[in-house]
């Protein structure tokens, strides 16, 4: 019997941006499978040339509507490294707190609004407004608290306004920080219910051996700057990012692809988890244990559980930072002096979807001569493609029908939480 199956997903839903899935199967054999990014290219790196360095964090925030804080932070770090500026401790703590706010809101958005509907057999969370309003209220409350954290520290959730080269422009009011402390104390209760909900979800049993790339934690789970490590043994400083990312252009994608020791590699929550498990907070480790996630996991669907683990970890860190900042004089030491000079610098930041690199070359008047941004989804796109090929091959061998294959493959791509507009910056 020569049964033909075609899956053709045009502009996959519940991901950021425009990407397509194409699969052809004949008589139980995979003929062709592809993940293709068709998003319109945006040319940010070319736009940055000639701009003053102070424009870069404002402009590059617009690369992404979900991780704009992460882009601003990578941009700031790249420029500060080029200018030889070390930011004050208080500013570093405030930036990290804003970063945790962003990771929390992005992970909540993905877990509840983008991933959960697949496990519940729904097209979106919208039907839950009438059938399970308590779940929507829970998701909205958790995500809302994370957004309040971003608003308080970065001045705004999307496209932050309180950062500047050298540190921070302003610090949040102590009264607002005290309010946040109370709000954050409500999240553990919300997380208990979240864990119960996710406990009922069946995570597909699939694995493909993968190289995982992330920042390397020295004493803590890593978020901003430092060395970069891979599960295949690569260990380099952030300034050597080009040796890690090895971007190349393919015919059918407006996003570039990356590779390191193999044909592709993965970044994101699972990569951070796999490479830095020992630095997780005890509460986060026990969630991992509860969901039977241990390093090194090669199941891409486990990205969802790794996100949940990171939520627990980020929450613990955010609460600690709020306490420390409440005991800090926030009226001074917010920014270092900055003097323009020629130089180049790289900033690596772990944003929700994985490691993000910004690199700048500045002239002696403070203008940008060259800019390069390597985005997590850009680094993941090749790995998503090869995962998709393997998953489609296994689905074909098992004789699954077209609807089931489409769902499984869509869930696979979503597990990476791709940010496609970002990847074609």
């Amino acid at each position, binding site marked *: 019997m020569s049964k033909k199956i075609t899956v053709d997903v045009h502009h996959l839903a519940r991901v950021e*941006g425009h990407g397509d899935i194409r699969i052809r199967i004949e008589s139980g054999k995979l003929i062709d499978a592809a993940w293709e990014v068709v998003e319109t290219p945006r040319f940010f790196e*070319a736009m940055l040339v000639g701009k003053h360095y102070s424009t870069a964090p404002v402009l590059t925030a617009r690369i992404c509507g979900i991780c704009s804080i992460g882009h601003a932070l990578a941009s700031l770090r790249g420029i500060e490294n080029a200018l030889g500026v070390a930011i004050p401790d208080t500013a570093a703590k405030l930036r990290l707190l804003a970063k945790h706010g962003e990771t929390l809101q992005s992970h909540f*958005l993905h877990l509840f609004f983008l991933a959960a509907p697949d496990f519940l057999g729904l097209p979106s969370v*919208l039907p839950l407004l009438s059938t399970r309003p308590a779940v929507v*209220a829970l998701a909205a409350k958790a995500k809302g608290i994370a957004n309040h954290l971003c608003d308080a520290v970065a001045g705004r959730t999307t496209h932050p306004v309180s950062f500047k080269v050298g540190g921070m422009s302003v610090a949040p009011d102590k009264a607002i920080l005290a309010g946040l402390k109370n709000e954050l104390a409500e999240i553990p209760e919300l997380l208990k219910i979240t864990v119960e909900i996710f406990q009922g979800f069946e995570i597909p049993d699939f694995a493909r051996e993968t190289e995982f790339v992330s920042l390397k934690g020295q004493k803590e789970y890593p978020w901003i700057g430092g060395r970069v490590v891979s599960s295949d043994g690569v260990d380099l400083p952030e300034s050597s990012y080009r040796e890690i990312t090895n971007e190349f252009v393919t015919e059918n994608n407006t996003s570039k692809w990356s590779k390191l020791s193999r044909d592709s590699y993965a970044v994101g929550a699972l990569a951070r988890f796999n490479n830095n498990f020992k630095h997780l907070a005890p509460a986060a480790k026990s969630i991992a244990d509860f969901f039977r996630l241990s390093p090194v996991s090669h199941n891409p669907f486990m990205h969802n559980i790794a996100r949940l683990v990171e939520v627990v970890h980020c929450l613990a860190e955010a609460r600690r930072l709020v306490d420390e900042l409440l005991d800090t004089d926030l009226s001074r030491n917010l920014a270092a002096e900055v003097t323009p000079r020629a130089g180049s610098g790289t900033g690596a930041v772990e944003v929700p979807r994985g490691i993000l690199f910004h690199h700048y070359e500045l002239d002696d008047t403070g203008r940008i001569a060259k800019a390069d941004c390597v985005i997590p989804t850009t680094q993941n796109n090749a790995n998503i493609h090869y995962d998709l090929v393997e998953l489609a091959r296994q689905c074909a061998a098992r004789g699954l029908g077209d609807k089931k294959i489409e769902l499984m493959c869509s869930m696979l791509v979503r597990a990476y939480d791709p940010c496609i507009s970002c990847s074609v910056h």
Partner: protein
Amino acid sequence: MKYLNIAAAKPKVGVFSLTCCEGCALQLANKEETLAAFLSAVDVVNFREISSDKSDDYAIALIEGSISREDEVASLKAIRDRAKVLVAYGTCACFGGVNRLKNVLDFDWMNREVYGETPKATSPVRPVREVVPVDFEIPGCPVSKAEVERIVTHLVLGLPFAYPVYPVCVECKQRFTVCRFDLGELCLGPITRAGCNAPCPAGGLGCWGCRGPAEAPNYEEFLELARSRGIGDAELRERLSFFGGFDSAYELAQDEPLAVRPVA
């Protein structure tokens, strides 16, 4: 459904993304305190970023992003044909947004700079109104969800909505923000339309003009003010061209030679 004895419609809404960061669409899922009420006031039937349902039957189309490739023209025209009301949603849709910064570049150089020897299709960036007729514009980078709620409330109750005619400065005074000019910095607050509650001057960034011009802005006076505080035309032009809403002011700020520009 009635509210204050006024009949309220529950319009079918589609949300569509052209070239942009999708941050404006994301705002629809933010402001969580009122999210359930907001989502119950409208019937979202097509919104790729959060739902795999795809209906072509919608009364209102929200378009975020600008047009930067020819295939976007055809999709936009198809949406225009189906929607009764087409809304340009966010700064990219209203003015082209930061995407438009590429329009002054040499396209061959730009494509080589990013894609090397494998150039990708791209066209000069246009706002939505240059491609199809637009019924309503909601500027902002990103849009203010509080303002979107005000607009949607007016829309479903069939009431007219008007933007503030005054500039961002008024909102800074209302929230006791120290004037960025008094700190020696540039701010487009005096010429930019209010309605956002001025988060950027309060956060230390100053206004970059994402909402476009206030009613009858006095550009000459504004440029005089900026120059009198020692701000040069090169910096003024970098700011005025950032979001694409201040072309005529940009033309007036030509007293100094252009900054380094990567034109082949």
